[in-house]
């Protein structure tokens, strides 16, 4: 499978519609503190179905919606879409191009979509079973997870082994 692009709109600090392309083998993301780099990672975990707000640094899931600034009001919804080329048929579907999307409205209503067709969360997580991709994947790593591995917090080592095994 090959990542193609990530589209973010209204998610955390991404009040404006933003597209990031992932065409290369190694993509670097840089920028000042607080600019939104880790929010990009959160967006990917969120669209993959992350249900635990704490994993995304939130007190409530509704906190993912752009919450406004002194000069700009809150967004009506948060939307993230992640697009892949299904090379080597890693994902069990006939589609060659796959786009998964997740939306959360201020009302609390939420939607998931597969190639723009509404679906359920488990249709999305089901696609990625055994691929190594998921919201809490052993392949999405930040420094706090490195610390958890080293201190073995809440049996982090075994959980990581089980994802790869």
């Amino acid at each position, binding site marked *: *499978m*090959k*990542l193609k692009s990530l589209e973010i709109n209204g998610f*955390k*600090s*991404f*009040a*404006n519609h*933003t597209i*990031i392309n*992932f*065409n*290369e*083998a*190694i*993509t*670097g*993301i*840089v*920028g*000042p503190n*607080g*600019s*939104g*780099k*880790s*929010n*990009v*990672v959160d967006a*990917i975990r969120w669209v993959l179905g992350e249900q635990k707000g704490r994993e995304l640094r939130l007190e409530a899931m509704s906190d993912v919606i*752009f919450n*406004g*600034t*002194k*000069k*700009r009001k809150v967004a009506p919804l948060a939307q993230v879409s992640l697009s892949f080329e299904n090379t080597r048929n*890693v994902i069990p579907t006939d589609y060659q191009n796959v786009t998964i999307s997740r939306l959360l409205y201020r009302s609390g209503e939420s939607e998931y979509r597969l190639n723009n067709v509404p679906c359920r969360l488990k249709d999305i997580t089901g696609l990625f079973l055994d*691929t*190594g*991709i998921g919201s809490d*994947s*052993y*392949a*999405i*790593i*930040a*420094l706090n997870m*490195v610390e958890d*591995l*080293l*201190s*073995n917090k809440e*049996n982090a*080592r*075994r959980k*990581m*082994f089980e*994802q*790869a*095994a």
Partner: protein
Amino acid sequence: ATSSFMDSFNKVRGHFQTVFRSLFTEDDDCDLILLDEMDPLECDIDIVAKPKGKKPKSISQLSGGEKTLTAIALLFSLYLLKPAPFCIFDEVDAPLDDVNIEKFNRIVRKFSTDSQFIIITHNKLTMAEVDVLYGVYMEEQGVSGVTAVDFRKYDYDNILTEMQG
């Protein structure tokens, strides 16, 4: 279930010794140990790491950078068992010195034939190693934007200053 876990565990253990030695030095010792062989599916997994002739009683005696590099060795050992289609690293290179950052970038490059990597970093050496660089910045107060960045060192310093807004 037990034998399949033991099979995976032993493979990762073998990989760990290879990867650890490539990140530290060729005659270093390390190991992964199941603390209770009578209970392989539940017991704690111990990490033994003895870089560069040292004899620490546990990995908690190692330095910040040595521990981070050890965790990276474990992660890549899991990736050798089961490559993930893409891997995301959020500033995991922060505790590393320049020499270890080069080793980190080299192992990422090596594995990038089988997986796509997304690397978030503040480190200039890492920035020089990626295939494409995106800058995330505050487009307006509290609102993120993304731009392609052409990395030549002075260019990045200028962009970073502009990105600070």
